[in-house]
């Protein structure tokens, strides 16, 4: 089995989960409602935990310890999509990003639960169940606020327009698409994108929001190859600040 292809796949998934998990944790203490504060904090805990389990799989393939991988790299060594690293903005943007990202990931893990790479298949099956609560949460709020007041609808619509080119960057093709498919490891970004688009269209159609025409959008690619916006490095500096004071400290 192509180890380099598996590593590339694991890194992008782990980095996506870690970076969005960190962004979600920035809502702790600032949520617009107590329940939302707890929801984003809980999703942060899930995502950071899921990323750790993915880094552990990488460690078993010879990569460094999960903490070292998470805290000691610079932005050009991260493979997350740019969507994950964008600042939280206001609640409407965080909610739209959560909706677009978590549906993509719920489907990605569903696909991976049949992967021929067994350790990833087992973990994905487990994570898939947890993500149902994330997509349920996103769904509830998108449906409510997407059909509520003029302000809630226009705020979500603006955020949707802004986030969509970045969301398409989730599906940036891997250099190993052919190997991943032929070896039965993963059915590929294009297949994932199609399923995702069908799912989010189904939800958006139950609201007064309009899905932007994706054929006219320029996807924000490059994240998978280490090209990031100016927002990622400050996030990493803050996230790793304590760890880097003494990487050998016991907690």
């Amino acid at each position, binding site marked *: 089995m192509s180890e380099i292809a598996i590593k590339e796949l694991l890194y992008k998934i782990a980095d996506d989960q870690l970076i969005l998990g960190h962004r979600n944790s920035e809502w702790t203490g600032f949520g617009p409602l107590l*329940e939302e504060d707890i*929801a984003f904090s809980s999703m942060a*805990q*899930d995502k950071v935990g*899921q990323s750790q389990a993915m880094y552990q799989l990488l460690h078993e393939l010879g990569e460094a310890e999960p903490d070292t991988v998470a805290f000691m790299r610079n932005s050009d060594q991260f493979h997350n999509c740019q969507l994950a690293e964008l600042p939280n903005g206001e609640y409407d943007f965080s909610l739209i990003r959560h909706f677009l990202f978590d549906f993509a990931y719920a489907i990605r893990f569903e696909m991976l639960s049949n992967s021929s790479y067994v350790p990833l298949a087992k*973990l994905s*099956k487990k*994570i898939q169940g*947890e993500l149902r609560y994330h997509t*349920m949460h996103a769904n509830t709020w998108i449906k409510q606020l997407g059909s509520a007041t003029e302000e809630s609808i226009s705020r979500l619509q603006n955020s949707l327009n802004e986030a969509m080119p970045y969301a398409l960057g989730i599906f940036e093709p891997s250099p190993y698409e052919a190997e991943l498919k032929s070896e039965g490891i993963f059915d590929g970004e294009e297949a994932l994108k199609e399923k995702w688009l069908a799912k989010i269209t189904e939800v958006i159609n139950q609201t007064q929001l309009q899905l932007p025409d994706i054929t006219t959008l320029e996807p924000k690619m490059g994240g998978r190859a280490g090209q990031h916006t100016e927002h990622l490095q400050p996030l990493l500096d803050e996230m790793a600040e304590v760890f880097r004071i003494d990487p050998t400290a016991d907690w």
Partner: protein
Amino acid sequence: MYSEAQILEWLEEVKDPEIPVLSLVDLGVITNIDINEHRVAVTMTPTFVGCPAIDYMKQDVIEVLNSYGIDNVDVQVNFDEPWNSNKITDKGRKALKDFGLAPPPKHNLIVDIDILDNIECPNCGRNNSVMKTPFGPTACRSIHFCNNCKETFEQFKPL
């Protein structure tokens, strides 16, 4: 030489640190016990992948077995046999209810949103409740409101 039943009985003493009435055995997170003359190997799996309590539980398993004179204890955490909420035993379900936490409804491994409403209230026993939020004080609990006794309660989430 110890029997598996004996080890399981001792492990009844190890409780979920966040739900101190529920043992790891009743929680269903002990997935395998392997015994040979000098060594006991316990395999565990977390309820949620990011469960912060797993390291404490692992340490507690080692300490309890050490206290019964088993010096060589090896605890592995993996996803070979992933946890789901159906694995909570009937005794565990009763313990949860007595603790004031609604036990997770049994399901066919595909959690339908419908099973999250009208959960039986652990305070008054009626099935007339709504889920307020799927995210509670820990990753494994959701928050519900009982329309009958007007109490807010938590549920151990079905997963």
